[in-house]
């Protein structure tokens, strides 16, 4: 079966700064693929390029057979992106925000309604969805946004640091939400500098540092290869 996403030799320059120096990896259908690396490794730039926010300087991104450079709109139809520091419209009620976003993806009102119902169930926010998003805590906002990203059952959900800034309880809940969703055929590409989180969530991971993929594989295979007990040690040894 062809992979959902293929990234080949992806390069990105900001002026003289080379953020990506030729990143390549593949994401298979229904798998969670984790990009792990320290701050400034190039994770966010990679995700932003795939979600059509940034244009690559060089390289190729193929998603469901479509080339990013030629068909960015096809990417937007089937991809959901959750940025690291995303927010919701403060003056909109949570439920209205979900409805607003659902309408972009739905063919008609009844489909949009289904998306919203799914999001309500995913978020677990209950009655609080009737309140304005401006009144939500960081954890609630993150759950709302994650529900928004997953409600359309996208072919690929791109999640940038999905548990960033959340407390232990909220982080656990969000991780369970993500894990549960791949059972429905959604592929997930996520990034995190929390390597233990990625180890828990991901089927396969890629180690990224200074714009380059150092190694990739299943967490177990990588731990065996580098004779390490967890991904943090794997990463340290891969960098060395």
């Amino acid at each position, binding site marked *: 079966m062809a992979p959902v996403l293929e990234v080949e030799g992806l390069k990105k320059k*900001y002026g003289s*700064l080379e*953020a990506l120096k030729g990143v390549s990896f593949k994401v298979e259908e229904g798998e969670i693929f984790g990009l792990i690396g320290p*701050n*400034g*490794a*190039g*994770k*966010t*730039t990679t995700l*932003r390029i795939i*979600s*059509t*926010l*940034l*244009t690559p300087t060089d390289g190729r991104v193929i998603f469901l057979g479509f080339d990013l450079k030629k068909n960015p*709109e096809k990417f*937007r*139809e089937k*991809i*959901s*992106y*959750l*940025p690291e*520091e*995303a*927010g*919701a*419209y*403060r*003056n*909109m009620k949570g439920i209205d925000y979900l409805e*607003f*976003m659902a*309408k*972009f*993806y739905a063919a008609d009102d009844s489909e949009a309604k289904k998306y919203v119902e799914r999001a309500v169930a995913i978020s677990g926010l209950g009655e609080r969805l009737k309140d304005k998003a401006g009144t939500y805590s960081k954890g609630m906002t993150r759950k709302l*946004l994650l529900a*928004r990203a997953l409600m359309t059952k996208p072919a690929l959900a791109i999640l940038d640091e999905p548990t960033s800034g959340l407390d232990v309880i909220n982080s656990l809940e969000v991780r369970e939400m993500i894990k549960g969703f791949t059972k429905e055929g959604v592929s997930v590409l996520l990034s995190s500098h929390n390597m233990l989180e990625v180890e828990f969530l991901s089927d396969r991971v890629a180690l990224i540092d200074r*714009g380059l993929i150092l190694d990739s594989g299943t967490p177990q295979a990588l731990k065996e290869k580098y004779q390490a007990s967890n991904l943090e040690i794997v990463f340290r040894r891969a960098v060395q």
Partner: protein
Amino acid sequence: MKNFSHLLIKEIKELINKQLVISLVFILVIFNFIGNVTRTEIKKAMAKQKIAVLDQDQSEISKNIIGALNMANFLIEEKAGEKEKVVDEIRNSNLDLLVVIPQGFGQLASSFQPAEVETYSFLRGVSISGRTKSEVVKALLNSTNEYLSNQYLKNKIPDADPKLLKAPIKNREFVVVRDRQAEGSSAAVIGALTAQNFILPVILMMIIMYSAQMVITAIAMEKQNKTLETLLTVPVSRGAIVMAKMLAAAVVGLLSAAIYMFGFRNAFNFTNMDDISRALGGVAPILKQLGLTVNTQGYILFGISLFLTILCALALATILGVLAEDYRTAQSLSVPLVFIVMVPYFISLFADINTMSLPAKILVLAIPFSHPFFAMQNIMFGHMNMLWLGIAYNFLFVAVMLWWTTRIFATDRVLTMKLKWRKKKVVL
């Protein structure tokens, strides 16, 4: 189209928030307050007002003057006694005008010798009524002077018309506009045109400023609330995102400007529109004869000029909005735009663009907001080349700006363009 209208509704809802409603209501309340205070003052000035008169002469002429003051909307409180004592008495009362007609006034006036009337204004502030009272008394004395001098001339030269004697040269004024000519005063024509169009620059300025500020704020708020990145990844064209923001800003900007103007007009309509219409009534035939009226075609051309200018402001403001990082930066970035709009506003009020030096003229006309400020004048005075040139310039400006704005939104720059004094930081 479905996605565009969906976006447009969201943008309008986002802009018409509690803060905007409160600020507009506040503006209406403030204007209403100013209007009420000013109207009350004017009413006071127009109502029958009490003045004191000390008639030490008791002649027929002095009685006539007091009678005329009575007719001129004054309630007369007649005083008697020594002048100094009366002045002292009024100083401690609430009266603020005293007219003293000295003894011998009637005799001097009827024998055509210099006669004096003294008026004492007791200033207790700078209200309108204080000023108008002494002006009315002065006008009454002038007409008494006119009457007495006419009488004198009639006595001395019975066959001559006193008016002709006093003003033997009569000035017939003609106003020429292009190939048309009409008898009338140029001052009256200019006055009528100014009165007719005085509100127009204010409206223009408000519309441009409000719309531009709305769009800058809309984009800056997307950045501040961290919603822009998500919005840019939904399946809707970047052009639709830009156009929805601009159209929403134009709609809410026009609405805000309309509410502002409603409040402004309500507050300052005491001058009032009836007076202007009456003044125009006399000059209207002259304006028509001179072709200084605007027909339907003229209004359409003015509308085009205004529409293009609003688009210029919105496109420019959209780019400024992209540069802003948050609401606060957006407010600072809209300040230069406000000042740029003020240049043509003040020039249209106090100067004539056609008589300015060429470099100054070029500089003013390079501002895309300038053209509708001068469009009405250009239409009325037949400077059609200037009008068309302005429309073409604004059209070109809008085209370039819209292309640029859409390019910015279609590329990385919508996220990476920042007005920062510090070194640029890139998130990897």
